[in-house]
């Protein structure tokens, strides 16, 4: 982006303006576009889509009134929450109570600085990109703990504690899985990691070796836990803790927590795509050669679809699984995932000594395995769908 702005300045587009001002305006504009044209609609549509997908899986209809197929439901929800009375309990610590949504939202939004949208579409390709994502997402813990404690409500406190314990614990397997890829890529920059892979699935780090293959699932599981998603949604387990750390929140403040949660789903998908699934890499077709615009669109679509696939998977998981208990959650992390992730890390590092030919054969074999697993999975899903009986009287329309 800096290069582009420099070009404009050189071209005399902003005559008489100091360079810093141009930069600041450019950055603000970029951030604003990302927030209002991508993040906000994305989080909103994700919330709607989750309800729709969920409803279909449960043979219900789901929100379908506002806009075509109810796609504008999120706007209606937003306006509703905007008009809701903002209640801060008298017993609460008012300062921290009102500060918490800011921190949670800020931590979530900052991740979008380094999330690539395409080959050149990225706000800032930091040379420490992936580490930066780990750092800002860890800030969310502080916000959640703050919300839980400041509410002065027992359910909130329990929820905040659970959430903090869970997020910090799962940060280890997530961090180590990321580390695996950093070893392979030799860079922390998001674009650098993507460039280290190819468009073809067998060039993805996912299929690089058995350890990264396992690492992907470790990462995805840990990310679900960090995002407080089912089956790890114990911090806001509505059947146990009423609403967990957001029990006392209402209106807009409440909304921001969930804004962050739904938006965070995309961050999970995007990071997984960047690290393991080849990011925005598209096949080097002839039509892309002479049309950079088309290339950018293709890259954007590729990346978005790959990332959103995992958002969908997260929804699917949420509709399917019950939730685990706190101690089960913690022992899953510390007794299984942490040791496993370290084994995978050392395995990946050791694998780097394998000569290039061997690596290529392994990738091909892993790709075959991945295809086989996918086929088996879909056969299984098909079996379940065929077994599922149609409704007798009750037919959900649409």
């Amino acid at each position, binding site marked *: 982006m800096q290069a582009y702005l420099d070009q404009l300045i050189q071209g005399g587009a902003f005559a008489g303006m100091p360079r*810093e001002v141009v930069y600041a305006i450019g950055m603000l504009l970029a951030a604003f576009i990302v927030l209002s044209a991508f993040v906000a609609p994305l989080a909103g549509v994700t919330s709607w889509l989750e309800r729709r997908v969920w409803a279909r899986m449960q043979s219900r209809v789901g929100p379908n009134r506002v806009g075509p197929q109810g796609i504008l439901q999120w706007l209606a929800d937003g306006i509703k929450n905007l008009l809701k009375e903002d209640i801060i309990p008298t017993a609460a610590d008012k300062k921290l109570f009102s500060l918490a949504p800011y921190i949670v939202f800020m931590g979530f939004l900052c991740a979008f600085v380094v999330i690539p949208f395409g080959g050149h579409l990225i706000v800032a390709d930091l040379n420490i990109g992936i580490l*930066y994502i780990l750092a800002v997402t860890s800030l969310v813990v502080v916000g959640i703990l703050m919300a839980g404690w400041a509410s002065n409500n027992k359910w909130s406190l329990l929820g905040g504690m659970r959430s903090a314990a869970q997020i910090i614990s799962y940060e280890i397997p997530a961090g180590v899985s990321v580390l695996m890829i950093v070893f392979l890529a030799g860079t922390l920059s998001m674009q650098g990691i993507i460039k280290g892979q190819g468009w073809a699935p067998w060039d993805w780090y996912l299929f690089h070796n058995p350890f990264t293959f396992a690492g992907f699932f470790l990462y995805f599981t840990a990310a679900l836990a960090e995002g407080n998603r089912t089956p790890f949604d114990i911090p806001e387990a509505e059947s146990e803790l009423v609403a967990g750390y957001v029990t006392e929140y209402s209106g807009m403040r409440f909304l921001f927590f969930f804004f962050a949660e739904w938006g965070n789903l995309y961050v999970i998908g995007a990071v997984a795509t960047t690290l393991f699934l080849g990011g925005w890499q598209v096949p080097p077709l002839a039509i892309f050669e002479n049309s950079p615009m088309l290339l950018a669109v293709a890259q954007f679509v590729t990346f978005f679809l790959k990332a959103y696939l995992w958002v969908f998977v997260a929804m699917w998981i949420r509709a399917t699984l019950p939730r685990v208990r706190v101690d089960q959650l913690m022992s899953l992390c510390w007794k299984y995932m942490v040791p496993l992730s370290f084994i995978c890390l050392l395995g990946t590092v050791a694998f780097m000594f394998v000569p290039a030919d061997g690596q290529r054969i392994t990738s091909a074999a892993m790709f075959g395995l991945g295809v086989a697993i996918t086929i088996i999975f879909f056969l299984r899903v098909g079996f379940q769908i065929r077994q599922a009986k149609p409704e007798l009287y009750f037919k959900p329309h649409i």
Partner: protein
Amino acid sequence: MNGAQVGFFILAGLLIVSSLWVVFQRNVVHSAMALVAALFLVAILFLTLNAPMVGVLQILVYAGAIMVLFLFVIMFLNPIGLEQRRRLWWGFGALAGLLLAGALVPVLTNGDAPRDPVVATELFGGPEELARSLFTDFVLPFEIASILLLVAIVGAVVLAKREP
């Protein structure tokens, strides 16, 4: 005074205010939150000093990990309202602080480091440079650090052992 200096003074002012909050807040949780803010600001200062890697690790390790532990322990012990304040101590402390600051400033600013920074290369402060240093000059401390951390775990486990 140019833009960079204005930025620095804003950051420095915020940092001093939040540091004062850490020390003078009555509520421990507020203190901890002020410390989070202070650490965050220090991380930003690191960035302005061409140390992005250290800055991000500062957030990751300090704000994301150490402060969470602090918050846990605060909520564990709930020490609100436990503390007794003594006015005498306050006067003494403030005096000591002023004296120390007065003594430190000349010592620090009298060093013979070049006042104008060496122009940094593109890679300076990046992970690669850091790793090169870590693997060449600081191998032994690197390994010893792991032993230090191991000792810390063992110590914590031993200390926390006597749970009811």
